[in-house]
């Protein structure tokens, strides 16, 4: 499958090893996507750079302004995180990826870098305004997740750059978020559509921040900007939720494939975006006693 195997201890060593091989080295996170691709011949790297020994990539760090989720955080412990305030939806989405065996090895960074349009953790990261923290020789840069994907299986990272963490900003307003995965055989199937929603409310119950992110309905995960505009500055209601869900469905640009037709996906976006928004609304109502 590959010839050379590296076990770096620092991100600097990762970058150096990757640079030596150009296009012909891959970073190994959990391996649940990469090893499948190598075995099928979809990719044939000369070298694999194992990230599991690099210090600090699997930590969750809280600062005053943000939460940093290390890219090597494995999905099972992430999905069961007790102190998840502020990243609940990301933890919940992590629990929707595939099966327990896969989640025991797979990582949140790998789920993003594999760049499937249907990746379950991505809509959750997008609605929480997460930025990808990317290390390169020129230094570290941050890229909003909504802008991180270039196409199916492709990110905007330069070859050799390393995704080290996700930075999720703290929100002072009351915030609830939800992710709905629609698939046939539960989590172990790839999502037919994924719908992420997030609502932050300020005084008087007015929506200060609305985010809707959709997976599996375009070449990359997308934000439904029109739905978001419709929600911002308004008060939540069942009618508003229904209108926003309709707008999100109109922004989806799915294809017909072996899982579902384009038309069915559009219908499912409307239904599941409404479900996600309604869950946010119900939880906020539980929080805010007006």
């Amino acid at each position, binding site marked *: 499958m590959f010839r050379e*195997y590296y076990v770096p201890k620092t991100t600097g060593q990762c970058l150096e090893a990757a640079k*030596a091989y150009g296009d012909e080295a891959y970073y*190994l996170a959990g*391996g649940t996507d990469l090893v*499948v691709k*190598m075995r099928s011949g979809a990719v044939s790297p000369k070298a694999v750079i194992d990230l599991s020994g690099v210090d600090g990539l699997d930590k969750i760090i809280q600062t005053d302004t943000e939460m940093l989720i290390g890219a090597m955080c494995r999905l099972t412990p992430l999905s069961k995180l007790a102190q998840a305030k502020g990243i609940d939806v990301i933890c919940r989405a992590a629990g929707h990826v595939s*099966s*327990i*065996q896969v989640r025991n*090895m797979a990582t949140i960074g790998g789920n993003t870098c594999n760049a499937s349009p249907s990746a379950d953790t991505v809509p959750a990261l997008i609605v929480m305004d997460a930025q990808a923290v990317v290390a390169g020789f020129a230094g570290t840069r941050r890229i909003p997740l909504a802008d991180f994907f270039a196409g199916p299986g492709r990110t905007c990272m330069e070859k050799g750059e390393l995704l080290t963490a996700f930075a999720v900003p703290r929100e002072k307003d009351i915030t609830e978020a939800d992710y709905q995965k629609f698939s046939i055989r539960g989590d172990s199937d790839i999502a037919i559509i994924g719908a992420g929603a997030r609502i932050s409310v300020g005084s008087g119950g007015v929506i200060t921040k609305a985010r809707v992110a959709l997976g599996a309905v375009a070449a990359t995960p997308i934000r439904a900007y029109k739905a978001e505009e419709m929600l911002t500055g308004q008060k939540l209601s069942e009618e508003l939720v229904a209108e926003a869900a309709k707008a999100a469905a109109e922004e989806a640009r799915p294809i017909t494939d072996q899982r579902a037709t384009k038309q069915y996906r559009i219908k499912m976006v409307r239904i599941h975006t409404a479900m996600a928004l309604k869950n946010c609304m119900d939880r906020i109502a539980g929080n805010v006693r007006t």
Partner: protein
Amino acid sequence: MIGPVNDLLGKMQIHIQVNERDYDLLVAPDRTLLDILRNELHMTGTKQGCDDANCGACTVIMDGKAVKSCITLITQAAGKSIQTIEGLSRFEDGKEKLHPIQQAFIEHGAIQCGFCTPGMIMASKALLDESPDADEEAIREGLHGNMCRCTGYVNIVKAVESARDVLKGEK
């Protein structure tokens, strides 16, 4: 600048523990744990099914967690403790004593062709070790990564529920 670890003609030394025995391997890093278990250690209880992480017939327990050995590189198992189906039963007074999960699978008709069985049992063991009170929903969720084309899963779930009760001392 670090160099590749597999500098012994492409191979590297890897230590693993399988069913409480230590093994020192000299292998190429791009072999899978499944390949090593079956073809180097001759433990053929773990099955090669789909070979691409879908069917779960290759499930083993690594450091207490169920993993699919067909997509686990042997390097990812380095220094770890692996349990396979061969390591589940015990010997007492010279006789083999099956694990309660194995016994329950037999008693509840949870085995037809038997090909998914080792993977199902190991996934069930990992599940019950982590969640000794797992209910039907949790059991079905925990077995999501294991496919059976014969039984329709009903008897498998009943077997795991029964084993759960035995392990809790309720039977």
